[in-house]
């Protein structure tokens, strides 16, 4: 069965305002070209889910006013320092934070993947993460011997959209993610999955047993778009490195709202070449 193959702009246009959008961290495969299209299309009220953390793409979306809520274990630009638009938004109260811990996000996505309404998880008890998550509950382990055994119950986390990038996909929508299997978990857990790939290859990925073992089958993929260097300015593992100078420049500009607007105008809004792809 053939996949729907779209342009980046078409793909982004299928993600409505208010969507709960799951995104991977910078060290995985980030669909930055699609994120820029979301910004160009002035999406609003997105609820970002970091799987399990977020980086540059979240800082840009937040700075551009696309985001209402951030659910994540962290927003980090690692060696580039604090995420400036994220930090400013939290301080000003313009976004709602749902702080989590990494394994809680993985586990809650696994609950959605399995079609179970919740999953228990150890840890968290006594933390202010738990105290601030009104959507989580503390229950008792039903298999505890005599005394109580409190344990956190996490409701299934079902994003409306998983938005990911990958090195290769095929015309059937099969997408190779290698060891970055949290991207597979995202696709299994989310209602819809949109993928950009460096290259749409000939043939069927699932006919190569080695590739198949690390590929998301097309049944989970709502649409695919080809995006050469689609993670830029972030890199992709096993592919190209991050654009260090560009990212450093971003962080410098994004320290202020004005600087960030300058970045937006220069690299996103006025990126006609990209918009026309």
């Amino acid at each position, binding site marked *: 069965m053939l996949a729907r193959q779209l342009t980046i702009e078409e793909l982004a246009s299928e993600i409505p305002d208010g969507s709960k959008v799951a995104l991977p961290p910078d060290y995985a495969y980030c669909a930055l070209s699609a994120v820029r299209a979301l910004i160009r299309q002035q999406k609003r009220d997105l609820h970002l889910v970091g799987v399990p953390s977020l980086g540059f793409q979240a800082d840009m979306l937040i700075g551009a006013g696309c985001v209402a809520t951030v659910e994540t274990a962290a927003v980090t630009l690692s060696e580039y320092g604090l995420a400036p638009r994220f930090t400013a938004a939290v301080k000003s109260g313009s976004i709602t934070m749902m702080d989590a*811990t990494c394994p809680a996000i993985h586990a809650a996505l696994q609950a959605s993947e399995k079609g179970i309404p919740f999953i228990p998880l150890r840890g968290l008890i006594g933390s*202010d993460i738990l105290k601030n998550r009104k959507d989580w509950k503390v229950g008792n382990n039903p298999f505890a011997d005599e005394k109580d055994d409190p344990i956190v119950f996490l409701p299934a986390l079902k994003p409306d959209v998983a938005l990911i990038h990958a090195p290769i996909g095929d015309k059937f929508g099969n997408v190779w993610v290698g060891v970055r*299997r949290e991207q597979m978990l995202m696709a299994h857990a989310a209602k819809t999955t949109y993928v950009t790939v460096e290259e749409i290859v000939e043939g069927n990925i699932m006919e190569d047993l080695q590739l198949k073992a690390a590929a998301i089958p097309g049944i989970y993929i709502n649409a695919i778009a080809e995006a050469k260097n689609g993670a830029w300015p972030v890199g992709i593992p096993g592919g190209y490195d991050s654009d260090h100078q560009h990212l450093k420049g971003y962080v410098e500009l994004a320290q202020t709202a004005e600087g960030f607007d300058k970045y937006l105008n220069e690299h996103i809004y006025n990126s006609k070449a990209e918009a026309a792809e």
Partner: protein
Amino acid sequence: MSTVLLEEILINAISKNLDGLGHIAVGASSPIPGAAALLARARSNGSMRVSILGSEDNNFFSDGGKEIFDIAGQGRMDAFFLSGAQIDGKANVNLVAVGDYNHPKARFPGSFGSGYLYFVVPRVILFRLEHTPRTLVKEVDFISAPGFSDDDVYRPGGPYKLITDRCLFRVNKQKKCFELESVHPGHTVNEILEQTGFEFLLPDNEVPETETPDEATLKVIRGEVAREISEIYPSFASRVFGIK
């Protein structure tokens, strides 16, 4: 003997707490713990595994982002490292915010895996290389992960040591607090008392100086450990060991 750097003293001191363990995991932004783990592995006679987040050479995980947490939950991770914007005398760690959580004065990236790993990994070694009353506080503003738990809470893991740029604390599990174990060369107990925002125990005897690595150990640190750590932390390896 050549001049020994603070980083080398820290690497050596941390590594002493890892000997005999089977699997050490190192999280993000942790060059010194990473080097300490590689040093401990170098003298383990091939009996120790080290996994380093962000490394390709030292990262054997093949089941996605969840595996490092699953493996800890299975009891297959013996030691891990945590830092904090603030750490308090109850070993609570804050990686989130200073001030009111909803209107913070400062906001940091977030709790990452701390809210889980601190509970299940037997030896969590805290490290904070700015030892001041601003970082080692009486009470953290936000608990990413609590130092100690009530008896009914499942908690096979928890804090084991706290190392700073001035000293090494051990954890006193009975009294649920820190106890000064050794002071790094060039620092004093009085300075530690002055620069620590929380109360801690002093040993009955004199506080020893943190050991300086011997020549053989230095050779390993500056040789294979420096080379291996430069894969993940090139700027650290370049600054400390002159590797590029």
